[in-house]
């Protein structure tokens, strides 16, 4: 039933979704996407990370056909989303950000509706499996209105999976969800990926991108600032800090340490040394030696990794200072 994705060259893995120079200006004149280009690989989990209003939903909605791009082109499985919309949309499942569900329908009916809408022959066996995977089977005859928020979210996922899509978009799947349920959601996303579905999720929680994504795209003010492998991103931008706690506070750094670019905390009890862990000489040895020679007494040492949060803040700050005239 699913059409074979087109591929010019079978040896080069073609991206499942390819976005080229997409911009979107809403009718009120607001430009929500600025020349976004992005390739999404088959089978990966890509997190689009950005603050509220960054343009994440707009980007996803454009790929899914809910919003028309102002310029640029998008292909899914090698097919153009406008010219071949019947093919591309069959490959895509979308779980929207808001809990937009009917009120008086039954879970089972809304699932059958979704499957039919995407032009698939009824397959109760498959839908049963989807509901069981999402722990919703007992609720199949429940009225949508009577479900809890978490269950509604899962019904939306079930609806998105009802036509067996190969690409799944999850728009802020854990926004406003408590920690326990968030972990469940992450596990579910992993299971889906293992079943061969490519997953694109948006989030404004950095820990979420860090926890489940293979690659992270950072988006702000409609611009895709950077897309990279999560590990590479950490390597590239993830500086480490070596923190030395002192036995006794000091007011100024000893002269022998001035060359080492240390930050002294306000209370004088802690010195922070920032280094690049991938550099062959990270300078920690010379630092320790210098501290020893200066006669300072070390109480404790530890290191910290920069989180995506800090990377993100750094990037956004850079970008805004750059664009400011």
């Amino acid at each position, binding site marked *: 039933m699913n059409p074979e994705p087109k591929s010019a060259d079978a040896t080069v893995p073609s991206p499942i979704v390819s976005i080229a120079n997409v911009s979107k200006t809403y009718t009120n004149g607001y430009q929500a996407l600025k020349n976004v280009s992005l390739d999404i690989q088959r089978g990966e989990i890509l997190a689009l990370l950005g603050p509220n209003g960054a343009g994440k939903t707009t980007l996803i909605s454009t790929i899914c056909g809910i919003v028309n791009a102002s310029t640029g082109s998008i292909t899914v499985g090698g097919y153009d989303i406008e010219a071949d919309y019947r093919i591309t*949309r069959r490959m895509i499942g979308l779980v929207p950000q808001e809990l937009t569900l009917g009120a008086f329908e039954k879970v089972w009916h809304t699932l059958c509706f979704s499957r039919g809408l*995407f032009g698939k022959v009824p397959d109760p066996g498959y839908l049963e499996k989807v509901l069981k995977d999402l722990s919703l089977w007992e609720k199949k005859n429940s009225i949508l209105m009577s479900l809890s928020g978490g269950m509604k979210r899962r019904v939306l996922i079930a609806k998105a999976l009802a036509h067996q899509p190969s690409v799944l978009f999850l728009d802020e799947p854990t926004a406003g969800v408590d920690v326990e349920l968030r972990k469940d959601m992450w596990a579910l996303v992993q299971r889906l990926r293992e079943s061969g579905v490519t997953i694109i999720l948006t989030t404004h929680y950095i820990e979420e991108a860090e926890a489940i994504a293979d690659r992270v795209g950072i988006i702000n003010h409609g611009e895709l600032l950077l897309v990279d492998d999560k590990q590479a991103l950490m390597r590239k931008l993830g500086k480490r800090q070596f923190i030395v706690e002192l036995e006794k506070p000091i007011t100024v750094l000893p002269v022998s340490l001035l060359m080492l670019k240390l930050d002294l905390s306000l209370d004088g009890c802690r010195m922070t040394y920032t280094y690049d862990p991938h550099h062959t000489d990270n300078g920690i040895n010379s630092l320790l030696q210098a501290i020893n020679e200066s006669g300072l007494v070390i109480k404790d040492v530890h290191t910290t990794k920069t989180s995506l949060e800090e990377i993100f803040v750094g990037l956004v700050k850079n970008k805004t200072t750059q664009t400011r005239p």
Partner: protein
Amino acid sequence: MNTYAIRVIYKYEMLRAFETIAQSFASPVLSTALYFVVFGSAIGGRIQTVEGVPYGAFIVPGLMMLAILTQSIANASFGIYFPKFTGTIYEVLSAPISFIEILIGYVGAAATKSFIIGLIILGTAGFFVPLHIAHPFWMLAFLILTCISFSLFGFIIGLWATNFEKLQLIPMLVITPLVFLGGSFYSVSMLPPAWQTVTLFNPVVYLISGFRWSFFEVADVSVGLSLFMVLIFLAICLLIVWWIFRTGYRLKQ
């Protein structure tokens, strides 16, 4: 053609109507029965016949039209407005389905519902007065054409409306007066000459006149003209829908 999609939209729209059966079918029938009692019995006591037709029977076609027009518009406009309002329209918009298919599904369901309501009212009226339908084929033709045209019209209103007020504005301010002044309860020839002329500008007059002719062979205007007017209205609605389709008006951003 994504026939599965048309089928599920149609099916679940119909299902919704049957789940709220009291609201969908019982209330239009009840209100018609009330009209029937008030007009048929109260006025019918004074007016024996209109153009040779007993008054109680005379008002049946008009009552049916009254219900069909309002129900077609209400059903179709609500059917498409509600998913827009709640946001569930996202699913239809992201599905491999064309605007025409969406239209067939929603308008088809709305037209079917009002057709059923029309038949129920006809059946109900049969309890009160002896009914004879002179031209069953034309009766059904007028009925079906009206259901489709006004469901299309309702669909357009549902697309256009951005809030509940707008949704009810046209049915309340335009349709209801036109229907009441369209000769549901009287023959145009009973009016003073000046008003007869004014009445001819009311498109609903043509609808009711043609429909009544199919029952009793009495009409205010010629049947051909009635049919022509219905087809014109249908064509106008199709034209607007075609334009909406071309521009993606108010569905996509």
